């Protein structure tokens, strides 16, 4: 939020162009928080991708009585209907990761397009675009997803669409804010004078100059998309109601917490590590961007 806004503001004071993005990333990776974030994210991605290959049982195989504790051969016990908690955990990350990645990407593409077009067009187009973004912002993100699910059901495409659509206005605002001062600059005017097509000006000249605030925003949005999609599953709206899904696992096994906590704890730790990881990466990039600006101000 404004931690990020401040970042962007500060960064915009001395924009340098293409080089900045690479420098910001390199500086970010030097920070411990970014490194820890990267390790956490890669760890969880590895579990989600490799997990299904090493799972001892199928995600819907019954291996014993419901809610039994860990025993020989059943590492973390069984869940609310007697399925293997460990196997369901290993299978349960893929869906969340894919849905979150795709819907964030959709939100970024839509939001960047709207933001760039609004900043470049100015005037009435700008007003209309940004006001319609405000309308979408008038909902809590999860609510629009729920409203759509109420009508169509928890389909994967619908969840992606709803999360992407509600991510768009937030990205659009950041893009527009960062692009506005860039568009005022001479190299854009000279590109216009040379007759470079508009989309090439936007993608080739303006876009590279707003990348660092966008990277911060992207990691922030990814964090929220993961939380949102996991929360939808936790509320009982996963695309596959019987499938293995971390959010769904937490919901299913919450009733039996007293006797068998593993079915809740394992997926919860995974979701927590993942969102903390993306959060740390975003903070690392934001800090790197500020740091560069400070160094510049000194010279």
């Amino acid at each position, binding site marked *: *939020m404004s*931690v990020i806004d401040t970042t962007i503001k500060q960064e915009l004071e001395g924009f340098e162009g293409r080089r900045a993005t690479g420098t910001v990333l390199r500086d970010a990776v030097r920070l411990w928080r970014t490194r820890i974030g990267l390790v956490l994210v890669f760890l969880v991605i590895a579990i989600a991708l490799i997990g299904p290959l090493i799972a001892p049982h199928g995600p819907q195989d019954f291996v014993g009585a419901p809610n039994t504790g860990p025993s020989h051969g059943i590492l973390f016990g069984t869940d609310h209907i007697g399925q293997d908690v460990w196997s369901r955990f290993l299978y349960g990350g893929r869906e969340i990761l894919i849905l979150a990645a795709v819907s964030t990407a959709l939100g970024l593409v839509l939001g960047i397009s709207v933001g760039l077009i609004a900043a470049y067009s100015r005037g009435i187009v700008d007003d209309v675009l940004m006001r319609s973004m405000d309308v979408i912002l008038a909902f809590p993100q999860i609510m629009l997803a729920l*409203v759509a699910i109420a009508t169509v059901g928890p389909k994967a495409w619908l969840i992606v669409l709803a999360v992407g659509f509600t991510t768009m206005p*937030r990205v659009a605002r950041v893009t527009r804010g960062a692009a506005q001062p860039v568009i005022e600059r001479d190299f854009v005017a000279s590109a216009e004078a040379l007759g470079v097509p508009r989309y090439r000006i936007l993608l080739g000249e303006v876009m590279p100059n707003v990348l660092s605030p966008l990277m911060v925003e992207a990691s922030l949005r990814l964090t929220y998309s993961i*939380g949102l999609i996991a929360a939808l599953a936790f509320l009982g709206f996963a695309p596959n109601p019987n499938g293995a899904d971390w959010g769904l696992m937490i919901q299913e096994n919450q009733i039996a917490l007293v006797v068998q906590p593993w079915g809740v704890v394992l997926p919860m730790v995974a979701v927590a590590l993942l*969102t903390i990881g993306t*959060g740390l990466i975003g903070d690392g990039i934001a800090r790197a961007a500020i740091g560069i600006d400070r160094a510049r101000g000194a010279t």
Partner: protein
Amino acid sequence: MATERSGSPSTADPAFVTAGPRSAAPGRVGRRGGILGFIVRRLLLGLLVLFLVSIVVFAATQALPGDPARAILGRTATPASLAALREQLHLNEPVVQQYFTWITGLLHGDLGTSLAAQVPVTTLLAGRLLNTAFLVLCAGLISIPLSIAIGSYAALRRDRAFDVGTSVGTLLFAALPEFVVGVTLVVLFATTVLHVLPAISLIPPGTKPWTQPKEMILPTLTLVLAVTPYVSRIMRASMIEVLESDYVEMARLKGLPERIVIRRHALPNALGPTFQVIAINLAYLAGGVIVVEYIFNYAGIGGALRDAVSTRDLPVVQALAMLIATLYVVLNLLADIATILVTPRLRTRL
């Protein structure tokens, strides 16, 4: 949830949003009318936003591809029952007319009839609305002063232990989805580690939530933990910006005690931008309660929305969506007005 969680400061006027302690917003705000004119303009804008929101809600519930009647009744529905439900939902009318039927009812306080419970939506939600309002109030009353205190103290102790500690803590908590926080609290205090608090917060119908303090603790704490990190981070950033400003240096140089510098010069100016974020986060609480009420089985409108979605009770979903969106718009309006009132500098530009 995260969701909602908006990464952007406000649905307010972009010119206004940027009006932090440092940045000047050129042009846009410079219209006539003083504070009253400003409030009237914001009010009209809010109404316009609500009108557009109602179109979005309507489009999402009734105009999405597919047949809502079939979606609600399932594949086994008989043609007769499908026809009856279409009649009840006015699905046979042209889309524009459907919208006007619905919005006219809404404006007259008729929120429709619940499909699942077969009672008017207003009857269904009245008691729950009170429960949710109380929960949000508790969370707000605790988290707002707490986050302002944490944020300003961290700014004053910049880069020392308290600042570094809260900065890491708020960063971690800000990243966690609230259902993870809520269920973790259940594991810690109710079921597994300690057994001191109830895992679910049943507020029996007819009782008021404030007579059940023990049931309120965990849901309130979850919401507080979800909101405090954001607001305190904003407060810290905003306070640091103010502390580095020329007028604070001036105040120090003319020998004012630090206490007065902070209370009279720094805090009021740092609070301005924070109000925007507080409003967003209070409004966000309106979304966060959906998940939190579900975790604790708390009888509020958030839990009702979740249930209505799972039974596909469209009239209830529409009513709740409009209710929560209205809350959102009103809180933003209040934040804009509050910001103007605490920032005299902005008033002169109206």
